[in-house]
């Protein structure tokens, strides 16, 4: 460590307020980074405390350090690496026993640990008394009670951390007794490890060998322990492999199963500790959670409630999006007019004015005006539901129907988010820990109609179908859901065939959302980040579209690049009843689906920029018959995600293959469905 800098790893179970502590301490200095090669994010930030710089690293939330998931590997490797001077273990005091399972595992890796006993306010509310001093004695490391949301106890937590880091406070972690048999094996293996020159963490390594820990076993198999935090390989590969064989022999001869017994012993100690430190001072009344759950998961009532929640969110998203979008639009056109006037006054050449104003400004402005309001509302709403604890209940109720598709309940949440914005849907897939289901959720999210496509779609549908707009729109929504279900079903029977992933989900207690947290997470963490990316993609794309529509300069429509594209792409659309103009317009909507109307205006040669126009809406019904109109709408709703969604897919998967699949899956599904609709419609004589 640098002199004066203290590095602190913040570990803990998911949903215990780790990030709240992290954000409260680091303030606005937080930045989000990635671990190399992994999709899981960690955040690092720093702050100054009494002249020392303290660097906090927020580790992914895990129940264990068993290296069974990427999160666990990351958290464990970071603790093993020796980089943190202290590990702060944030513990949910209301669920102490389960949380201690992780604490005890951390204590096996390092003795420089401070336990942050969070959610102490809820403990009080539940009528418990928690003997913090006794817990400190039991664990042998400092324990600091906190209420992170109120920032209570945080100064003490930092103080204890600094004391441990600087060695002013010594720790003496409890050592687990795994019972005669396993302790005997540990001793044997430890002796062997010492013989080949491994002293550091030999007990832990012996334990992990007996537990058949995949990472440790793999390291011994390769004969290279650098992954386990040992600087230089102290022993030959053969010696390590011999040791591994010895461990396998010991493990296989152990009854009951060493793996089970080790976890059992750990929980046994946790149970005893909890028994000694937690006292119930008044009987627990039926908890609020119980009462709410009885309604929310009711056999009948759960359905209208779920439906109402989703409908309410979409209604607010669309209404609020319209209003705020209107303001943004108004501001945008003033900005555009101002910019045009100013550029004209300084006598800029036409292509500068066109490129900057009609290309860049209009494109970027439209994306912001149409994406920012719904995204903000949606993120906030879901962050609220998440904090409240309602989302897991929805996943719980909707798991059964999703089983039929070979998926699970959590995927419905990503779809729900996708109705607002595909980007948020893709990013929400993070909550699914099963890799296959997560990928399915990512690949099928673009098939869900986002509020952008919905908004632009409504305008088009009203223009094209007039009185029949409502049933048409509803059919499109159901078609989109059907397409996503179909794609899920097919993916689970082709690409992701095999063992169906299980569904294990923690059902947290309901909590009152903390506004500050929600706002932070929704606005800073997600919206700002995502919008910035949107601008980065929309800018160049809309500039390119403007260039295509205006080059060569002064040429008639047929002579421009757009005209050429329309002619070239026309044959592609034949089987689907799509014209060259339609396909080119759809290509233009890649930055954002909302610009579909001006894009159509451009491809029909009605205008040369993406500026909003009403003229095309009245012209289209004459050009397209009802079948053509409907096929176009179907294809438009399903065909490809916007570029920002593609970027989000890339960000979540970090794989070119899956990003391409994110394009292929919707495109294929859209093609198949559009083909069926068009050919079927023709057969029926429309």
């Amino acid at each position, binding site marked *: 460590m640098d002199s004066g800098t203290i590095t602190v790893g913040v570990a803990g179970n998911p949903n215990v307020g780790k990030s709240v502590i992290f954000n409260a301490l680091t303030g606005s200095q937080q930045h989000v980074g990635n671990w190399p090669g992994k999709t899981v994010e960690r955040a690092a930030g720093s702050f100054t405390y009494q002249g020392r710089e303290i660097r906090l690293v927020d580790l992914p939330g895990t129940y*264990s350090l068993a290296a069974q998931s990427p999160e666990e590997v990351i958290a464990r490797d970071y603790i093993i690496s020796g980089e943190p001077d202290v590990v702060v273990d944030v513990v949910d005091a209301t669920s102490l026993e389960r949380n201690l399972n992780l604490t005890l595992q951390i204590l096996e890796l390092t003795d420089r640990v401070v336990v942050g006993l969070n959610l102490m306010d809820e403990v009080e509310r539940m009528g418990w008394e928690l003997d913090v001093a006794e817990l400190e004695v039991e664990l042998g490391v400092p324990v600091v009670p906190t209420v992170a949301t109120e920032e209570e106890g945080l100064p003490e937590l930092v103080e204890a951390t600094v004391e441990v880091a600087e060695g002013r406070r010594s720790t003496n972690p409890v050592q687990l007794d795994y019972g005669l048999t396993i302790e005997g*094996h540990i001793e044997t293996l430890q002796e062997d490890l010492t013989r080949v020159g491994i002293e550091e963490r030999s007990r832990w390594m012996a334990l992990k060998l007996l537990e058949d820990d995949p990472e440790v076993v793999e390291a011994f198999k390769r004969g290279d322990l650098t992954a386990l935090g040992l600087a230089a390989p102290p022993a030959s590969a053969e010696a390590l492999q011999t040791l591994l064989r010895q461990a396998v022999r010991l493990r296989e001869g152990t009854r009951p199963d060493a*793996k089970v017994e080790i976890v059992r012993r750990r*929980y046994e100690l946790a149970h005893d500790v909890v028994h000694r430190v937690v006292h119930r001072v008044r009987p627990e009344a039926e908890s609020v959670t119980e009462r709410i759950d009885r309604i929310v998961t009711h056999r009948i009532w759960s359905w209208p409630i779920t439906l109402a929640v989703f409908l309410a969110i979409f209604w607010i998203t669309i209404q609020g999006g319209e209003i705020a979008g209107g303001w943004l639009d108004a501001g945008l056109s003033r900005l555009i007019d101002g910019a045009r006037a100013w550029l004209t006054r300084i006598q800029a050449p036409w292509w500068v004015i066109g490129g900057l104003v009609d290309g860049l400004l209009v494109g970027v402005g439209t994306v912001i005006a149409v994406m920012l309001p719904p995204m903000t509302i949606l993120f906030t709403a879901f962050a609220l539901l998440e904090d409240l604890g309602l989302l897991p209940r929805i996943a*719980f109720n909707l798991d059964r129907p999703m089983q039929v598709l070979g998926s699970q*309940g959590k995927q419905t949440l990503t779809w729900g988010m996708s109705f607002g914005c595909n980007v948020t849907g893709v990013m929400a897939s993070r909550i699914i820990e099963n890799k296959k289901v997560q990928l399915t959720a990512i690949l099928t999210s673009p098939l869900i109609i986002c509020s952008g496509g919905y908004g632009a779609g409504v305008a088009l549908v009203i223009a094209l179908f007039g009185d029949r707009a409502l049933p048409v729109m509803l059919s499109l929504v159901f078609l989109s859901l059907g397409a996503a279900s179909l794609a899920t079903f097919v993916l689970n029977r082709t690409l992701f065939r095999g063992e169906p992933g299980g569904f294990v989900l923690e059902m947290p207690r309901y909590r009152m959302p903390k506004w500050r947290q929600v706002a932070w997470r929704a606005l800073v963490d997600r919206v700002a980040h995502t919008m910035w990316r949107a601008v980065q993609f929309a800018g160049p794309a809309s500039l390119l579209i403007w260039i295509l529509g205006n080059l060569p300069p002064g040429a008639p429509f047929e002579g421009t690049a757009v005209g050429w594209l329309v002619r070239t792409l026309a044959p592609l659309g034949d089987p689907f009843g799509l014209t060259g103009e339609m396909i080119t317009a759809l290509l233009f909507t890649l930055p954002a689906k909302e610009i579909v109307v001006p894009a159509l205006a451009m491809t029909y040669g009605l205008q040369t920029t993406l500026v909003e126009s009403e003229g095309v809406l009245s012209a289209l019904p004459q050009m397209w018959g009802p079948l053509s109109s409907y096929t176009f709408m179907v294809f438009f709703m399903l065909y490809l995600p916007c570029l920002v969604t593609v970027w989000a897919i890339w960000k979540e998967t970090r794989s070119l293959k899956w990003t391409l699949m994110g394009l292929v899956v919707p495109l294929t599904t859209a093609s198949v469905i559009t083909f069926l609709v068009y050919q079927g419609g023709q057969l029926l004589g429309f």
Partner: protein
Amino acid sequence: METLDLPQWFWPALSLLLTVLWLATLLWRRRRPGPAETSLPHERVEAEDILKAAYAEEQKEGVLRIGDLSHRLELSERMIKRGMAALLDFGWVERDAEGGMRLTDEGKARAQELIRAHRLWETYLVDREGMSLDAVHAEAHRREHTTTPEELERLDAELGHPAWDPHGHAIPAPKCGVPASPGRALSGDVEPGDRVRIVCLDDDPAPLLAQLVALGFKPGVDVEVVERQPDLLQLRVDDHTVPLARAAADHVFAVPAPALPLELGRLPVGARARVVDIKGSGTRQRRMLDMGFVPGAEVTVMRRASLGDPIEYRIKGTGIAMRRTDANDVMVEELEDG
């Protein structure tokens, strides 16, 4: 330096006192050869080893000869004779009319107890500690002498009343009906549908024992009571139903069979249960364990989702939802209410 003026009788008196004390210690030890002693004099271990050999020899040859024993134990006849003297002192052997030796009932009981302890320890060491078969003998031998009857019964219960040791030798049952034996005679109050585990068969009368064993009754075997008639029990052993006369059932001792573990997914809402085992392996099993589903943990069925699946369970103070198929990997025994 002043000379110490001791009376004439001092030295003889001291000698006499020491002799008496020495004799007293001898007598004292021989009067109480209790098995409860924790630190065993070396002779006792040796004596018990000779007792076991003598028991085996008598079982095989019908008589006890110093020469055979010496051969068996690879000890000189002089050593064996000294050992036999100790056995006589313990009351484990007695001289018969012809001047030969034979084991007393007490000696036979102690020998059986030792063999039982030895084989139970071997079973324990192999099953629970993973020792290899060839290595267990010495360790079991060391432990058999220091195990009290109570400890032995606990060990037996923990191992699930095994019938055979890892070498394939039968583990002798404890003396049936004596307080140390946990079993009750099968002829007692059993009801149709009960499942019991046999812990002990009377070895007297011998023909009955042979017949029982031939029918499949062995310590460690679970039987189900199919039907109960006044003089006859219909019992299901393995896959067939066997009739057993009530008189014969008097010689079979059993304990209630441990409840068969259930799959967690089969419990109704509101039920409480204790986790017995987690099936499967790898990540799935590990995840379950880390969630708190460890053997011994208590779990409550909270509620089902609107469509019946998944199901929410409360374990270690936390609500965990999972599908029935996943829950079925958790084996539990249901707990009574209250």
